[in-house]
C-alpha cells in the first residue's frame, strides 16, 4: 500500500515536473506550438528523465552496495564511487579530449569502479561502520582533491567555472542525447542488479550461508561493484555527484520490505527517483529569486536524515 502511494506520488510529481510552471507553456502553446514542443521535449523532458533515472540509480545501487557490504551506511557517495566517477569524467573530458556523452559516461564508470575496488581493498567484505566511513571518506577526499587539481591545471582557463554547476549536481540544460548516454547503460546495469535480488537477501545471513544456498558471493561482489560503477559513473558524468539519496532511499525502502536488503532494491529505486525529483522541483520552484544547486537541496534534507540514522545505529548498539 505504501509502495503504491509512493508510486502514485511519483507519477504526480513527474507530471508536475513536466508541466509546471504551466502558464508560460500554455501561453507559448497558443502562440508558437513548435517552440512549446521544443521547451517540453528538449528542455523539460531530459530534465525529468534524468531526475527519475539518476534518483532510481542512486537508490538501487545504494541498496545493492549496502547489501554487499552488510552495512546501511554504504552508498555511492559515502563509498567514494560518485567522487571517483567525477574524477574519471573530468580526466576524460579535460585531458583525454572526450566529448561524446557516452565516452564521458565510460570515463565516469572507470573512475567509480576504481573507487569501489579501492574501498573493497581497504574496508573488506563485511565492513564495520568506522572502517567503511573512514575508507570512503579518504577515497572521496582524495578523488575530490584530484578533481579540483585537474580542473585547476586544465588547459581551459574556464574549467572551474564551466564545471561548477556540474560539480554541485545539475539537471539543467541537459539534452536527450546526454540523458540517453547516462540512462541507457545505467538501466541495463540496474536491470542486471535486480536479477540478484534473492542473492542479496541470502547474503543477509553472511557469505557462507549465501554460498550454501547456491549463490556465488565472489561473483556477486564483482557484479555489484562493476554494475554500480557503470550506473553511477554514467549518471555522474552527465549530472554530477548528488549526495545522500543513495544512502537514505535504501534505508527507507528496507522499512517497507521487512528489512530484506535484496527485496529493497526496487523500492529503493522508486524512492530514490521520488527524492531526486522532489529535490529538483525544490530547486526550480523555491521562491529565492534564483535556482539552488541540486546538491545543496539533497544535502539540506539528507544531512538530518543521515544524523538520525547514525543516532539510531548508536542507540541500537547501546540498547
Amino acid at each position: 500500500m505504501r509502495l503504491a502511494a509512493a508510486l502514485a506520488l511519483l507519477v504526480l510529481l513527474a507530471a508536475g515536473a513536466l508541466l509546471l510552471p504551466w502558464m508560460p507553456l500554455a501561453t507559448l502553446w497558443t502562440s508558437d506550438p513548435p517552440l512549446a514542443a521544443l521547451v517540453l521535449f528538449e528542455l523539460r523532458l531530459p530534465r525529468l528523465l534524468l531526475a527519475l533515472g539518476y534518483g532510481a540509480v542512486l537508490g538501487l545501487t545504494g541498496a545493492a552496495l549496502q547489501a554487499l557490504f552488510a552495512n546501511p551506511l554504504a552508498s555511492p557517495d559515502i563509498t567514494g564511487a560518485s567522487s571517483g566517477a567525477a574524477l574519471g569524467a573530468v580526466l576524460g573530458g579535460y585531458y583525454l579530449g572526450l566529448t561524446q556523452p557516452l565516452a564521458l559516461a565510460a570515463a565516469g564508470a572507470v573512475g567509480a569502479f576504481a573507487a569501489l575496488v579501492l574501498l573493497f581493498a581497504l574496508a573488506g567484505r563485511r565492513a564495520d561502520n568506522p572502517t567503511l566511513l573512514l575508507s570512503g571518506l579518504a577515497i572521496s577526499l582524495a578523488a575530490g582533491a584530484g578533481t579540483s587539481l585537474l580542473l585547476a591545471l586544465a588547459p581551459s582557463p574556464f574549467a572551474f567555472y564551466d564545471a561548477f554547476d556540474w560539480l554541485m549536481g545539475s539537471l539543467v540544460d541537459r539534452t536527450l542525447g546526454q540523458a540517453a548516454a547516462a540512462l541507457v547503460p545505467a538501466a541495463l546495469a540496474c536491470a542486471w542488479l535486480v536479477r540478484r535480488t534473492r542473492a542479496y537477501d541470502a547474503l543477509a545471513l553472511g557469505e557462507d550461508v549465501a554460498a550454501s544456498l547456491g549463490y556465488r558471493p565472489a561473483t556477486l561482489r564483482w557484479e555489484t561493484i562493476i554494475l554500480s560503477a557503470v550506473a553511477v559513473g554514467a549518471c555522474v558524468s552527465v549530472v554530477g555527484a548528488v549526495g545522500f539519496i543513495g544512502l537514505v532511499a535504501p534505508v527507507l525502502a528496507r522499512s517497507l520490505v521487512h528489512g530484506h536488503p535484496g527485496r529493497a532494491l526496487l523500492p529503493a529505486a522508486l524512492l530514490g527517483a521520488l527524492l531526486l525529483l522532489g529535490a529538483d522541483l525544490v530547486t526550480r520552484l523555491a521562491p529565492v529569486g534564483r535556482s539552488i544547486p541540486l546538491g545543496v537541496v539533497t544535502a539540506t534534507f539528507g544531512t538530518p536524515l543521515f544524523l538520525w540514522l547514525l543516532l539510531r545505529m548508536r542507540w541500537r548498539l547501546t540498547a
Partner: protein
Amino acid sequence: MTSLLASGTAIPGRLEPTDLQLKGGTFTAVIGPNGGGKTSLLRALAGVEPAMCGQVWVGEEELREASPARRPYLMSFLPAARDVPWSIGVCDAIALGLPRPEPERVDELITLLELEPLASRSVDRLSTGERARVLLARALAPRPRTLLLDEPCSNLDPYWAHRILEILSTAASDGAAVCISLHDLSLLDAFDRVLLVDNGAIREDGHAQEVLGSSSFSEAFRIERHGTGWRINPSAGRQSSR
C-alpha cells in the same frame, strides 16, 4: 537414504586432502582443539570455502553444481558466526532457507524451536542464543538431506544444548546425514560417530568411547581421562597451530 561423499576435499594450508562419507541416518560429531580444522572441514564439505579443492557429492549430485533452487534441499550449512546486520523478522529469516514460500513449514519450525514469543521481533534484536535457534530453524527449513552445523550448541543454555541435539538426532533418524562440530565432550554419547580433527586432518573416526580413549585424542587435546573426569596430560607438548 542419501549420503554425502567427499573426494579429495582439501583447503590448501588448512585441510589435508580428505575422503569421507557421511551416511544418511547417521549423527556425526566433529571434535578437535581450537584451530585444529573443524570449521575448515565443515566449510569444505559444505562447498562454501572458495579455496577448496576436490569434490563433494550428495547422492548423485555434485554440490557446487546445484542451482539455488536445488541446493538447499541437498545440504544446509550453519556457520559459527551468528551476526545478522539487518532488521529481518524471525519468520522472514527462517524463510530465507526455503527456495519457495512455505509458511506452514516456517510455523512448524517456530513451534519446534519454541520461538513463538520471539516471532514478531527482528533477529538483530535477539540475544545470541535466541538468534542461534532462529538460524538453526533456517538451516532445518528445507528438510535437507545433509546438515552441516558449526557449533550449533555454543551460546546455548543446558536445556537448549540438549534440546537441539535431540532435534538433530531426530532429523538423522528421519534419514538426513547430520554432522556438527562441538566442544562439549560430555555430549558425545548422543552421536553415532565421532571424527577427531587436528592439524587439518581427520585423526580418528569411530564411536565416542573409542575416539576419547585414543592416543590421538590425548595428543590433540592435551588432556586424558582421570576417574570420571579429565586432567591435563603431563606428557603433552605445546599445541601446534596451522
